[in-house]
């Protein structure tokens, strides 16, 4: 099993964190993982993306030319990355912010991650909602592992953030 995931959104949407959660979960489940950010001089706005590979075999290049799954959190990212998905790949779209004409991909999941996040109380957990939806479709890592990663990464001062992320994850799974 080798899964190549590109996650793209605007700066501030937690795209990098989403990738790191996946990578760390994969690592805890004793898989080979790599995480590669797009790093740039621009700090806010524009597109930000990371590439995550989770595999049962040692990983060659961390750079993904064609992804198995593409998670798109904002409109410019769809335009920028739609060519980077394999023909049979899974396309996950944040329908709250992305309008998509019908795409040739067989598997497309359009869900309102940002709206759900706002509904449960914090727009910044849209990425976690997306994560839940993705895991419901592709069981790359156990939900329990992801939850543990969220708990371990959160600090005592931010217990409420841990809770809301757990909630976001569950909402996402429901949407998947």
């Amino acid at each position, binding site marked *: 099993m080798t899964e190549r995931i590109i996650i793209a959104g605007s700066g501030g949407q937690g795209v990098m964190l989403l990738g790191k959660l996946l990578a760390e979960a994969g690592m805890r489940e004793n898989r080979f993982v790599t995480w590669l950010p797009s790093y740039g001089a621009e*700090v*806010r706005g524009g597109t930000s993306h990371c590439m995550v590979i989770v595999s049962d075999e040692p990983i060659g290049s961390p750079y993904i030319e064609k992804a198995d799954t593409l998670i798109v959190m904002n409109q410019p990212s769809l335009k920028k990355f739609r060519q980077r998905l394999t023909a049979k790949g899974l396309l996950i779209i944040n329908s709250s912010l992305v309008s998509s004409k019908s795409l040739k991909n067989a598997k497309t999941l359009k869900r309102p991650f940002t709206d759900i996040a706002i509904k449960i109380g914090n727009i910044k957990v849209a990425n976690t909602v997306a994560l839940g939806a993705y895991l419901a479709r592709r069981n790359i890592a156990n939900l329990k592992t992801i939850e543990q990663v969220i708990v371990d990464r959160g600090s005592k001062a931010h217990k409420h953030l841990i809770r809301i992320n757990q909630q976001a994850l569950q909402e996402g799974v429901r949407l998947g």
Partner: protein
Amino acid sequence: MTKVFSRPKSLRDVSTHYCPGCGHGIVHKLIAEVVDELGIRELAIGVAPVGCAVVAYDYWDFDCSEAAHGRALAVATGIKRVRPQNIVFTYQGDGDLAAIGTAETLHAANRGENLTVIFINNAVYGMTGGQMAPTTLLGQKTATTPGGRQARLEGWPLKISEMLREFSGVKFIERTSLYAPQEIIKTKKAIKQALQNQIDHTGFSLVEILSPCPTYLGLSPVQALDWIRDVMQKEFPLGRIK
């Protein structure tokens, strides 16, 4: 209808990459307005820094050159010495002018080069991710002073403008800021004077502008301006230094 205001000719009609609330956009515009008002667009040659404004030459519509990090005043010296009829200015951040470029800055000033320097002081290294700058305040947290700047380890905020005051070759230094419309107007006046000095062969002129970097101050754009007004200018007093 009479047109009373428009985009300066010297400012290209493009979007910039700067963060919301950044001071670069304002100062780029002021420079463009002044260049237009002085009628020097076809004489102007700008030297860009290495920093967030590394691509300033994409935003101005007159001749520009890059310079290696910190070397803008050496590059500008080269240009001005061979083409004294042009109006040559550098646009530099605190790292460019007062860290890696300190020697070039001091010596261009000491030689009394007939140049104009626009010094953007935002107390942090923006482009590379928020590291300490020479002008970072004591106690200020940055990527390389995670516990806050300590005088014992990192020294004090560097007052390069005050240092340059002593140089006979330096003819004009003013520190201004952008935290309110009146301050922006003062900044424009200072920029205009600094460029006029070059036209009049008065000598080395520098404008230090206290500018907001909301992203690495961890503040909203408005809070960043307030921080300059309430905190930064206490360390870097505004006004005419020379």
